């Protein structure tokens, strides 16, 4: 659609005026924007109000433990053009705190709550930061890279003892396929 190409071209020109923005066209309907954490709410407001990106598809959190940062990705979609814009920001891992975008996009409440209990990132201004899925979990936030789920499982749970006679016979014979 010619209209859509014009629209996204206009968008790209406007985005260049933001400081520290890197825009990348990844595929036909995918755009990646890397931006400073402070500038994100303004970007989202611009996308929603002026460019018609009314649908927040997801907010993802990626744990870059070697860099000491969390990467938050906001995926917003425009129904008219069908383009998805992913806005990537980085926040420091240690006081993992950021602003909530609930007043712009109400679906953000679910994702922020989910990221809070899985990663430990606190979103200021989010309506509900209570635990949702892990209400009876009192360990560290499980999606962080330092949490080793296998070690936890071996420490907490027992395994079934299964030693029937037919299996012992097979082992005594040195293993192999039974006819």
């Amino acid at each position: 659609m010619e209209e859509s190409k014009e629209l996204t071209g206009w968008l790209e020109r406007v985005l260049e005026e933001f400081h520290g923005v890197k825009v990348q066209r990844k595929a036909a309907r995918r755009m990646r924007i890397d931006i400073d954490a402070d500038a994100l709410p303004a970007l989202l407001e611009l996308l929603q109000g002026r460019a018609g990106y009314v649908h927040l598809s997801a907010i993802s959190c990626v744990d870059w433990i070697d860099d000491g940062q969390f990467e938050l990705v906001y995926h917003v979609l425009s129904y008219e053009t069908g383009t998805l814009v992913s806005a990537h920001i980085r926040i420091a891992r240690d006081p993992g705190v950021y602003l909530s975008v609930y007043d712009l996009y109400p679906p953000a409440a679910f994702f922020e709550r989910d990221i809070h209990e899985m990663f430990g990132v606190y979103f200021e201004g989010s309506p509900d930061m209570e635990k949702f899925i892990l209400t009876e979990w009192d360990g560290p936030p499980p999606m962080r890279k330092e949490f080793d789920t296998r070690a936890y499982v071996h420490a907490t749970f027992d395994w079934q003892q299964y030693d029937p006679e037919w299996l012992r016979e097979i082992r005594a014979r040195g293993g192999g396929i039974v006819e």
Partner: protein
Amino acid sequence: MADKDKDKAIDIPVTAGQPAGGSPYAGVFDRLFDFCRARSLFLLHYCTGCGAIELPPAMTSRYDMERLGIQPMATPRQADILLVTGYVATKTLKRILLTYEQMPAPRYVIGICSCTVNGGMYWQSYATVKKLNEYLPVDMYIAGCMPRPEAVIAGLQQLMDKIEAGRANGWQDYYRRYDAYLGKQQALFGPRWQTPTDIVAEARRFELFGPGTLGAHTSLLDQYQQPLELPSEPVFGRQKDESGR
């Protein structure tokens, strides 16, 4: 494989059933009751996990388990079989234990899908339980991921044979070794874990009180139980009389 071989192969620590009471005619009535029980089982359909999607085909006309006398039932108070369909998240395990203890004895547990046996697909998961029969006694496991409706019905038929032969006595094992089960539950949920059902009193009533019923873990129950307190101010306008009640 013969039935006996299957029982030998799966080594579930269930003690052999003994008829309650000492009357010489107890055995006869027990056989009759077991015969009738096996033919009229109510299934508590609590969809605890993935395997629940193959239950409607097993219940409806194509594979029809109602011809075996098995019917779904919504409330645990009238159900015989607790069907643990699939993996058990730790949050769900608490509700399964509460549900299990609400069911009237004799009650049977079937663990469907491989996740109840030994963790299955989610063996690395921090949120699922690996070995179901250390938290509550399991009478039958049906392996698969997920088992076909024919496999579910074959497992139910095997359970019916087991009930009729008087060997499905997992529920008695729960009373006889309650301390061991409670210990495992408390290890997972914390020392304050308790359910509203008084298992020890029920064990005494059913004459299934054994040396394994009380122990270190059941003593924690008394410690953390809170007595009922009456309200200090009137409720709904009720006036307190002289005795203060």
